[in-house]
């Protein structure tokens, strides 16, 4: 049976953490699982940090607000500092080391660093660091099948922006292979 996942994705507004969360939620929808996606909508969304909680399960989701994530995808220092201590025992952290200079490694949590922002610039994938990060998260926690993830990408990229599909696929692969 597929695992239950309680994931937090966090970073600056504009880095695309809400979109990355939506991709995970869409993957859950495609696989007909129970799921929820809850964004922060406080003053932080107006130019500051943004985050969302995503739950995937095979039972109805209780609180959609994730307090002890078993996975954390994090793209800036303030969010890293805010959430790192909340990660559950045995949890997985994917941290963008380009954006987070000070990375601590709590006991019983696996922290994977990936210079996603730098990679996105080097590979002419500017603005897709979030998708590189998601590829890495997918590799580590396997939240859906590979076909589903690609289908989610196709579903979430609007018809007018289909030219972005290939760069997104490239970004995903980059993260998966890192």
């Amino acid at each position, binding site marked *: 049976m597929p695992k239950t996942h309680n994931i937090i994705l966090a970073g600056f507004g504009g880095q695309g953490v809400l979109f990355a969360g939506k991709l995970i939620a869409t993957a859950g929808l495609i696989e007909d699982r129970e799921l929820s996606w809850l964004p922060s*909508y406080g003053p932080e969304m107006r130019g500051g940090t943004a985050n969302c909680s995503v739950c995937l399960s095979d039972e109805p989701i209780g*609180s959609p607000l994730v307090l002890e994530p078993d996975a954390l995808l994090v793209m800036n220092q303030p969010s890293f500092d805010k959430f790192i201590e909340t990660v559950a025992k045995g949890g997985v952290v994917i941290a963008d080391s380009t954006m987070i200079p000070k990375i601590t490694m709590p006991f019983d949590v696996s922290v994977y660093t990936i210079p996603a922002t730098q990679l996105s610039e080097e590979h002419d994938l500017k603005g897709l660091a979030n998708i590189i990060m998601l590829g890495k998260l997918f590799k580590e926690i396997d939240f859906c099948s590979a076909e589903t993830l690609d289908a989610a990408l196709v579903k979430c990229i609007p018809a007018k922006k289909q030219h972005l599909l290939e760069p997104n696929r490239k970004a995903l692969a980059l993260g998966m292979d890192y």
Partner: protein
Amino acid sequence: MSEKVLMKGNEALAESAIRAGCRYFFGYPITPQTELAAYMAKRMPKENGVYLQAESEVAAINMVYGAAATGARTMTSSSSPGISLKAEGISYLVGADLPAVIINVQRGGPGLGGIQPSQSDYWQATRAMGHGDSHLVVYAPSTVQEMADYVYHAFDIADKYRTPVMILADGMLGQMMEPVVLPERKTEFIEKPWAACGHDNKRPHNVVNSLYLMADDLERLNIERFERYAEIKATEQRSESFLCDDAEIVVVAFGASARIARTAVKRARENGIKVGLIRPISLWPFPERAIERTMDTAKAYLSVEMNMGQMVDDVRLVVNGRRPVEFFGHTGGVIPTPVEVYIQIENLAEKVGA
């Protein structure tokens, strides 16, 4: 049946309202319900409907009053401070027996309060949404699916009983995305012979009115309206009972807090505590019968809310001193955690020997 889609609660409310035949939406921006208005602004022109951003909440509810008076299906949405501004108009809707749907995506109060999720407008919605002897039907969905289902249902109930109906949601339900199957488009609607839509020289003039200067007339109309309320109380109670059959501790929670309570109840069951959950879906009429049914096994009740303790009054009215009724909650936008609720259940079980 429609396919399952991923939607925000606010958007599901809007789309489902359109499918229920609502073509007239009047609103004013306020967090955390703004996506609903934005969705309507985008969709209504494509449905040959009207989206109008009013100059104020006061104007918006009065535009709803005008549109409802013509017999059209119409809706407005806001969040707590804006709902207070609509109170006058809602009382007029009640007084003129006009059907309409009002959405409250609650945030913390009083005053400007905050913008985080809250359930602190329970009293306002169920007790005193406007001046005068008045009620409105109030539904509290707890999933995005129920947001879609109950706003759709709300239009039918509004037309059937000629009453305003409120969907009492909160910032969490409004902002979150979940899979939802949207209802089919409604194509048949009941006749509204009372509507002020131009008599076309075929009938005497219709008057939509809430003014009765003769005390006897007003009393008679209020009594007639309360007879309708009695019918609503008898037939329109809605709730969900979860693990209540042998429950010695009964948790009562609605909307977002019911989701949290459910997680806590499951965990307490795993640890051997005989606990169940009653989730009121209709807050007015309050599901008295569902609570009453638990009385045989229940040793104590625990109301869990995102406020300082409001629905607990209604639980106490039903229990009427026969069992202890306790309250646990957070307010101001702080969301209770399943662990906190679990501890309350455990403590209460110990206290009453459950």
